[in-house]
């Protein structure tokens, strides 16, 4: 028996949810297939939400230490249970799942628990957990199956001593030491979270800096902060072998250096979950990087099949996944999707957190030649003093005449929220002056925008360009010097 739908979505992560809801809103009969026991995808089950929940505790600890002027050096007692650090995780996950489930139900979407695989370009077969099979046919199919951690051949991941990002939070106790291999978002986030919790962390990667896609000024500051917390970043290092003997994990680098730790987290990227999909039956194939390729409308080479979220590769964020899900279905249903997000922000929840939007200094110079850069150090801002968020800074990149903000980069607590101000200025094509002409609450970290704008415009003045506005008070400009 085959059930007919207008839209079948495979996967209930952020990408699949938004695709299904958009379909239902457009009046389609929609089914969403999910192999997991609950909806929400990697984002809810093992990714974004659980990691951010642990981070919350680490940040609270760091902020407590900082606010006490480091007089009280609070340490986690030996044998601290990880579960006790996952503040309200069950509650958060359950309420999120309930919310997603309700939303799907309210929109009349059929939620089918099982694993989907293509049997033809218009039909998928769903195998239930007990093994029963049924078929679904649809005019539009959206692949939103997400990704799973990559398993490198030389790293024996056993989820006991050597863990990946799916199993790291299954640890019962805080280890004394942790080696993290990889220096992408997940590696850097977990490395800094565990370091803040008092674990002896060593992060190892081939790259000279972690998070190579970010402005080096930000990542250099991050590494400095990371190492100040007692952790270590081993740059330009390749792994020769990893062996777990049950007492410890021994990581040997090609340089000959040997790192010994209680546990190891392997976070060397993720692979698209296309394995069980039987893509060939749909007339599709994964590319050499294992990803499904799509055009600007998120359409695969088979025009009625779309692919969204982690399965199509970078930026591989929940935020982008949601937007892609919505856009794909808008396109399929002939609905306007709005402007595509050129100004997509990136948030990295390391401690301290980092965020950026638009072009960084190097990319802006490459594309526009002459540009202006302004900086504001949090330590120069009243709010920064009050919250002891002294190490952050904001960097603003603008067109040479200040007529347009080209990008904003921020490091420091609150960065992922602050970045949206810059994003809005970019979307509205506002001149840099907008940050001076408007009033910011005082004391706020957002004031950093004003300070950076003043710094940037003073450089324009220095360069002999006419200032449209009166010079800012000297102390503000001083405060905005290189952090």
């Amino acid at each position: 028996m085959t059930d007919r739908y207008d839209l079948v979505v495979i996967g209930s992560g952020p990408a699949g949810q938004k695709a299904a809801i958009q379909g239902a809103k457009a009046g389609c009969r929609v089914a969403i297939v999910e192999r997991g026991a609950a909806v929400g995808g990697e984002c809810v089950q093992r990714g974004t939400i659980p990691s951010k929940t642990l981070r919350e505790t680490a940040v609270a600890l760091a902020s407590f230490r900082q606010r006490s002027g480091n007089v009280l050096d609070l340490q986690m007692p030996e044998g601290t249970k990880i579960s006790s650090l996952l503040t309200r995780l069950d509650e958060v996950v359950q309420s999120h799942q309930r919310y997603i489930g309700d939303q799907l139900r309210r929109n009349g979407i059929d939620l089918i628990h099982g694993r989907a695989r293509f049997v033809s370009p218009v039909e998928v077969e769903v195998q239930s957990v007990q093994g029963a099979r049924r078929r679904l046919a649809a005019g539009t199919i959206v692949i939103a199956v997400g990704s799973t951690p990559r398993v490198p051949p030389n790293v024996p991941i056993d989820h006991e001593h050597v863990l990946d990002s799916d199993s790291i939070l299954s640890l019962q106790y805080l280890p004394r030491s942790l080696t993290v291999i990889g220096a992408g978002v997940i590696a850097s986030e977990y490395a800094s979270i565990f370091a803040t919790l008092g674990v002896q962390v060593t992060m190892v990667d081939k790259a000279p800096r972690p998070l190579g896609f970010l402005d080096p000024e930000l990542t250099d500051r991050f590494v400095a902060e990371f190492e100040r917390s007692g952790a270590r970043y081993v740059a330009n290092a390749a792994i020769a072998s990893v062996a777990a003997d049950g007492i410890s994990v021994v990581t040997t680098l090609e340089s000959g250096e040997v790192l010994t730790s209680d546990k190891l987290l392997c976070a060397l990227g993720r692979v698209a979950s296309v394995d069980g999909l039987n893509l060939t039956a749909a007339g599709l194939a994964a590319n050499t990087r294992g990803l499904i390729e799509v055009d600007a409308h998120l359409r695969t080479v088979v025009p009625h099949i779309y692919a969204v979220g982690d399965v199509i590769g970078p930026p591989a964020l929940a935020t982008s996944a949601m937007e892609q899900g919505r856009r794909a279905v808008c396109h399929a249903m002939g609905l306007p999707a709005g402007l595509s997000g050129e100004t997509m922000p990136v948030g990295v929840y390391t401690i301290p957190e980092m965020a950026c939007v638009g072009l960084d200094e190097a990319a802006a110079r490459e594309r526009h030649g002459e540009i202006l850069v302004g900086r504001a150090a949090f330590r120069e801002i009243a709010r920064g003093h009050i919250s002891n968020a002294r190490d952050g800074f904001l960097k603003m990149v603008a067109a040479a005449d200040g007529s347009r903000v080209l990008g904003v980069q921020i490091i420091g607590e609150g960065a992922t929220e602050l970045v949206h101000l810059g994003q809005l200025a970019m979307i509205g094509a506002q001149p840099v002056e907008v940050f001076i002409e408007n009033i910011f609450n005082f004391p706020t970290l957002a004031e950093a925008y004003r300070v950076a704008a003043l710094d940037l415009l003073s450089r324009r003045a220095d360069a002999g360009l006419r200032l449209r506005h009166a010079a800012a008070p000297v102390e503000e400009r001083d405060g905005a010097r290189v952090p």
Partner: protein
Amino acid sequence: MTEPASALIPPASRSEALPGPLRERIAERIAQGSLDIPMLPQVAGEILAQGSAEGADVRRLSDLLHRDQALAGHVLRVANSAAFGGDVRIQSIQQALIRIGLVQMREIVVTVALHGKVFRSASHQGLTAELWRHATLTGLFAKEIARQLRANVEAAFVCGLLHDVGKPVVLGLLLDVCKETRHTASHAACEAILEDFHVQVGSLLGERWALPDDVRQAIAHHHETETPDGFGKFVRMTALADVIAYAAAKSDEEYEVERGLLAGHPLFAALNLYPDDVEALFAKRAAILAHAQAFTS
């Protein structure tokens, strides 16, 4: 309730296998709490209390091993067994610790300690050996299930290992009662009594030993196929490991039949394990049997 698929538990013979008054006497003794409940051996208790290896001090463990010949002997035997085997025969505890690993060592210490104090009955050695082997197999299968589910592997092992810990205590009680009444209990009668009372007694033991919550739940509910959501995942993993361990211990032919019957077990679905996940678990049988052999021989 499901019955573990085992010859160990012949349901039909249960009540009739032992004269009614004897059963009543056992039930009475349990109800009164007058049980000869062994204390958790000190070493095992210490190590279990750590929950996992992270906090355990290798040197301290090594000291303990050095002071306990029987334990050290067993550890060396395991370290040199086929499952761990290196080319060089190990003669030092320190080296054995490195070869076997602290986590494994912890498991061995706990198992040996329990073996020594709890799993000991001169008159029913065959039965205690079976119980012992089943406990180890369940622990090892629980580990594999946990690995698949990305749950904590070390905790799953302990739940599996201790799920039937009530059985040897009931056996002790039964033998006491038999002695008092000058009655001899057949193997089948013993099995039936153990089956009837082990959960109750195991739970008492869990309480007296102040075992971690997950372990106590696993002891109390490992025969339930439908565990309410409030119960931890570890109960379901233990319950499943329990039935798989029974099947895996049988002869190859019997196992093939059991495996077919087991495939539709509701606990697989309850843990969101798909048919090929189940196959992957079954495929571990040979390795787990070899491992268990190393632990228990």
